[in-house]
């Protein structure tokens, strides 16, 4: 599936002195390639999360369109767009996103049970093993650490085998070893045909990316991935 943005922008209203309209993302064209990992880097508040949320169908652009296989997802009614996201777009949101009334396994299975009664318990265990928290499957999510919650959110995003994965800081709370594990998992998904978009601060993540973009004050520009991953050269006096 091809996810495409055509001239999308998003403005917010802010309370305060002076102008109260703030444009987080300025008119942007973008295509998320199938079978590739695309990374977006940028400073905090640069508009990365706003941009990825617009692509995921979670935040309507002020202007422009988001097309999934040529269909404007924001032209769809809420029910259809939600089902489309459930089936085809796996989203790993920023922050801690466990449903506290559910166990780890129930959290992972939740997207699968929203529209279907087919058991995906085997796949859930398989994903939990891949992110190395299968032994925690019966634990309630409020008993997990930040890193474990992140891994649970990744497994949950993948339960319906989506063809598009949009992950906002997926390795934010993870140690180096687990970061590598998750990045390899994303690489494997991309290699098997999925489109992966990662919003990240991690330089390690960029090594796994096929395309790297930088968001700066709401403007998205493509960078040469090699240039980003090279350590900065310092001159010793």
């Amino acid at each position, binding site marked *: 599936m091809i996810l495409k943005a055509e001239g999308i922008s998003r403005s917010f209203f802010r309370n305060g002195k002076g102008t109260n309209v703030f444009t987080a993302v300025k008119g942007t064209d973008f295509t998320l390639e199938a079978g590739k990992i695309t990374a977006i880097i940028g400073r905090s508040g640069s508009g990365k999360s706003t941009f990825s949320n617009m692509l*995921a169908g979670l935040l309507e652009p002020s202007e422009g369109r988001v097309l999934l296989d040529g269909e404007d997802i924001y032209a769809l009614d809420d*029910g259809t767009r*939600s089902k489309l996201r459930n089936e085809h777009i796996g*989203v790993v*949101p920023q922050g801690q996103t466990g*449903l506290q009334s559910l166990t780890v396994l129930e959290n992972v299975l*939740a997207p699968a049970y929203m529209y279907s009664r087919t058991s995906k318990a085997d796949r859930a265990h398989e994903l939990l093993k891949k992110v190395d928290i299968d032994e925690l499957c019966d634990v309630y999510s409020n008993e997990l650490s930040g890193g474990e919650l992140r891994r649970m959110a990744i497994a949950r995003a993948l339960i319906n085998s989506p063809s598009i994965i949009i992950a906002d800081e997926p390795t934010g709370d993870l140690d180096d070893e687990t970061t590598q594990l998750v990045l390899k998992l994303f690489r494997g998904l991309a290699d098997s045909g999925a489109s992966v978009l990662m919003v990240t601060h991690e330089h390690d993540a960029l090594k796994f990316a096929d395309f790297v973009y930088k968001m700066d004050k709401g403007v998205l520009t493509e960078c040469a991935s090699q240039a980003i991953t090279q350590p900065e050269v310092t001159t010793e006096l």
Partner: protein
Amino acid sequence: MSFAFELSLKNIKRRPFRAAAMAALVMFLTFSIFAGAFTVISLQNGLEGYRARLGADIVVIPNSAKGHGSVDDILLQGITGAYYMSGKDIEKICAVEGVESVSKQFFLTSAKASCCSSRVQIIGIDPKTDLTVMPWIAESFSGEIGDGDVMIGADVSLNESKTVKFYGEDYRVAARLEKTGTGLDSAVYTNMATIRKMAKDASSLLETDAFKGVDINTAASAVFIKVADGYEISEVADDINIHITKVEATPARSMVSDISDGLSKVSGIIGALVAVVWALAVVILAVVFALLSNERKKEFAVLRVMGAPRKMLFSVMCFETALTSLVGAVAGLAVAAAVVFPLSDTLKASLGLPFLMPRGGTVALLGAGAVIISLLAGVATASLSAGRITHSETGLLLREDA
């Protein structure tokens, strides 16, 4: 089981204190609705029964009745006493201009001795002319009240042989009367011939001054008057009071309106209190749900991220509220029933007004209504909060939390 329903159950199970707090609020709501409505309906029932029984325009009692109770005590509470007006005075009353017809009543109190089953008020009536008790008796007994027959109020106890003993004689109980919610429920009714016989028996059995100088065959304790068309009730009552000095005549309608006014005030106060308590509980519910929804913004955003449509989030919130509200409403009804039914006698005594509990069917309907209204109030207030949250953009909710 749908995903939304299953998630609601898990939310309740995992957040028992949150669910209990919501249920407690709804319990309070149901309690106030049921207890308030029950009291108001009981008072209205009492007044209706009272109105139905009061067919007379004027009530006349002897001056010697003073100290035994007022006219409304006689009509409303069945408080009678051993006071009598002579047959001559009754004839004078009948002769007053404007008096169309009269009906006499004879009061007697049974003795607290072996000659009597229990100490009760006995009221003798003339079934052919009676305007106050007969409409009520007709609801339970369609036959003729024969000599030696008695009718007992709903609260009078009865033995297996269905007879009561007064002054050494057994009397057959022909019927038990419908409950009125007044002291009349504790009295016994019979015809004039029977009560005069009882009075004679009492006079010979007991050493009492009650019948000193009284001709039991012609005397009466109260006279109920129907005024002829074209005459002012108050003027006829005044005429009686002026011309017959040993009696006191009171227009009955003024008593009804006095009681009705009193009852309207009490009903109004109770109704207003219930409305205030109810409104307050609904506002508290709305505030609590709004706070809970805010606290659950992140949870809803995560569900949206997974692909839940707004409708599903709305269902989760509504299922959860409906389940907790149902538990709260049923508990509220149980508490209200446990408090209101046992305390109704105390309430009746403290209000001093006719108080007649509604019948079983009405109570059941009232209970079901209180549960449904509370349930709807809970779900409606939750829906408002859920609607507000589910219509927020998920991206913004995630942004707020980030």
